[in-house]
């Protein structure tokens, strides 16, 4: 049992909840609401649906626990000691962070951590047993799993070996602590290597998909949902958003044609007198687009964005330029620009003036067409009276009523209207709440979803709101408003975004198309 215990210890925190305390805190609260949701759902549909649902949860949490390493097995919902003990599951446990290794230095922390893990596990079980039987998770990327296993198998023996001896040492000698630290470091190193391998293998699998003559978009989407490796993002996004054709033979030609088309458009609209209102509007918004990020303070960046937005506005008179569209432009710009940076400068610090005119034209054109595609899907967000946003706000309100009735009641009592705080969430796709970097990760998933920006986004907003439920329920009107306009997301990392996406995925699978009979 010692061994099991050690295993639990080692992988406890890495077990998917991340080291971030907000994540640790939010997982149980999600489960709480989730179990409530199940109960509600149960009333409506009986067991037939239940199996599917739990599968979904398995999927989601496996993704959640893997973070960007979706190669390993999914989080084990039925955590029997046997399973934990077995080597393949130990290798399957995701990342042990560096932070974790420091914690090992202080043995007194040991029990607390293992407790934490057990607690959470109990929670899993509690919810799973709550009227639901299947514990097998069905990962989204089922077909990729066998491949992944091949890599670490050899490793895993070594690792489980070291775990064994580690356990023995601990129980035998008085120099426990000393050895513990060393062994742990060894284990740590092995883990890190393994992680690297997993990352590389993920990139390789990804490349394989992208290198096919005709790319299978469903496959690409499945991979992209869990995050796209940085270097492969430009191409992936262009494919996912439908700017480039899946058939690689036609791709170069298409790029050439579209880039030329963009240049022609620019020449055309700038040849005639500027449409003053639109131009003025864009002109004043450019300097206040991400002013805190260096990239956006450079002349070249500002002029590029100006041209893109102006051309788009003139070509789409029904909506014209609406504030917020400038925000939506930046993830594309940043991602496509990053493809041209040779010296490893972070894109957010890069001066695009260093690129050739031709290169900048390419970045601009690609950004323009991608933005066009994106906005095609959410056109009614920006036309007169913004009906798309009003619809989304109402959907969010309905959704919260089902997901978190107490919160919805509290907001109503305090006279907080959803439109007051979530209008901007819809208009700017949460970009005012999240960093551009985190937004980019979020869009990997949005682009992989069938209606990422118009539908899935509402579930993301729901997850975002419910995340602060406990705090909000203690606040009165002005504090709620102030909080929601400035939520504590400054320190958010990719992991926080991925947790949010996973939660959104759950709400979507529970409530999508289920609105009618629950109303």
């Amino acid at each position, binding site marked *: 049992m010692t061994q099991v215990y050690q295993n639990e210890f080692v992988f406890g925190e890495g077990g998917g909840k991340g080291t971030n305390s907000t994540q640790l805190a939010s997982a149980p609260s999600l489960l709480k609401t989730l179990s409530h949701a199940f109960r509600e759902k149960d009333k409506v549909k009986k067991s037939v649906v239940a199996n599917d649902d739990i599968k979904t949860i398995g999927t989601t949490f496996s993704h959640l626990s893997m973070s960007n390493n979706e190669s390993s097995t999914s989080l084990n919902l039925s955590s029997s000691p046997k399973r934990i003990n077995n080597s393949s599951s130990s290798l399957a446990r995701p990342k042990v962070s560096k932070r974790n290794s420091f914690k090992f230095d202080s043995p007194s922390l040991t029990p607390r951590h293992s407790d934490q893990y057990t607690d959470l596990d109990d929670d899993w079980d509690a919810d799973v047993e709550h009227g639901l039987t299947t514990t097998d998770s069905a990962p989204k990327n089922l077909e990729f799993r066998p491949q992944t296993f091949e890599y670490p198998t050899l490793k895993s023996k070594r690792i489980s070996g070291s775990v064994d001896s580690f356990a023995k040492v601990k129980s035998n000698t008085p120099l426990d602590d000393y050895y513990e630290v060393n062994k742990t470091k060894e284990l740590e190193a092995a883990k890190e290597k393994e992680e690297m391998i997993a990352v590389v293998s993920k990139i390789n699998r990804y490349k394989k998909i992208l290198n096919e003559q005709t790319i299978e978009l469903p496959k690409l989407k499945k991979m992209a949902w869990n995050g796209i490796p940085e270097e492969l993002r430009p191409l992936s996004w262009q494919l996912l958003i439908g700017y480039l054709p899946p058939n690689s033979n036609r791709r170069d030609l298409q790029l050439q044609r579209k880039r030329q088309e963009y240049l022609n458009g620019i020449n055309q609209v700038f040849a005639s007198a500027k449409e003053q209102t639109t131009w003025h509007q864009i002109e004043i918004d450019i300097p206040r687009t991400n002013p805190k990020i260096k990239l956006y303070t450079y002349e070249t960046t500002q002029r590029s964005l100006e041209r893109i937005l102006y051309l788009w506005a003139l070509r789409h008179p029904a909506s014209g330029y609406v504030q917020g569209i400038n925000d939506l432009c930046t993830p594309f710009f940043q991602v496509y620009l990053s493809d041209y940076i040779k010296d490893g400068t972070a894109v957010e610090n890069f001066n695009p003036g260093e690129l050739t005119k031709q290169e900048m034209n390419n970045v601009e054109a690609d950004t323009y067409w991608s933005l066009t595609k994106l906005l095609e899907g959410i056109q009614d967000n920006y036309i007169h009276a913004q009906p798309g946003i009003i619809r989304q706000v109402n959907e969010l309100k309905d959704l919260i009523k089902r997901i978190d009735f107490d919160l919805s009641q509290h907001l109503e009592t305090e006279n907080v209207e959803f439109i007051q705080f979530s*209008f901007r969430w819809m208009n700017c796709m949460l970009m005012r709440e999240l960093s551009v970097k985190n937004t980019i990760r979020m869009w990997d998933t949005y682009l992989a979803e069938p209606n990422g920006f118009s539908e899935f986004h509402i579930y993301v907003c729901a997850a975002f709101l419910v995340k602060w439920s406990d705090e909000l329920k203690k606040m009165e009107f002005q504090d709620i408003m102030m909080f929601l306009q400035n939520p504590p997301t400054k320190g958010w990392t990719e992991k926080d975004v991925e947790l949010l996406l996973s939660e959104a995925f759950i709400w979507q699978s529970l409530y999508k198309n289920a609105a009618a009979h629950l109303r």
Partner: protein
Amino acid sequence: MSKSNLSKYKIVFLGEQNVGKTSLITRFMYDTFDSTYAATIGIDFLSKTMYLDDKTVRLQLWDTAGQERFRSLIPSYIRDSHVAVIVYDVSSKKSFELLDKWIEDVKIERGENVIICIVGNKNDLTDERQVSLQDGEAKAKAHGAKIFLETSSKLGYNVKSLFKKIAKTLPEFEAAGKSGEEGASEMIDINVENTTTQDGQCQC
């Protein structure tokens, strides 16, 4: 939760875009200035407690977006407000001319049952001035605005004074204001200081 007993007053900020509505509020709230605020989307909310004599009120400030597309949201906020602060930019004739339209919007929603303030912001831009102080005053008078001021959020000029004047018009403080009359110094408002020197402008 005892705070809930405070009287709350809603103040809506209106005006063309880029005249400095957000800057004005931010200067008042945090006494800071930044030339690059992201454009306001829809409506933003801020709340501040003000102290005067023995009374305390809470000001709820609604900062609206200037862009045309977001206008459909605004009427419901005007309807709820006790005070409408309409801002123009002294360096933009256009923003001044469009004041009439904003005032009309307010009157449509609230009739005479609202306190209108007119504020000419950015008065630090002396070289670029397109609207004179006199024109501003005349317009304010013509529309029956209770308060008219020129301000500079950048320099912090007249901003506290503006909010102090606004507070004086609220039912809570009206009596206090009258009894004290010249008594700006009687304001025990920790946020509003040094305003006496700036009070030289039209009080309409």
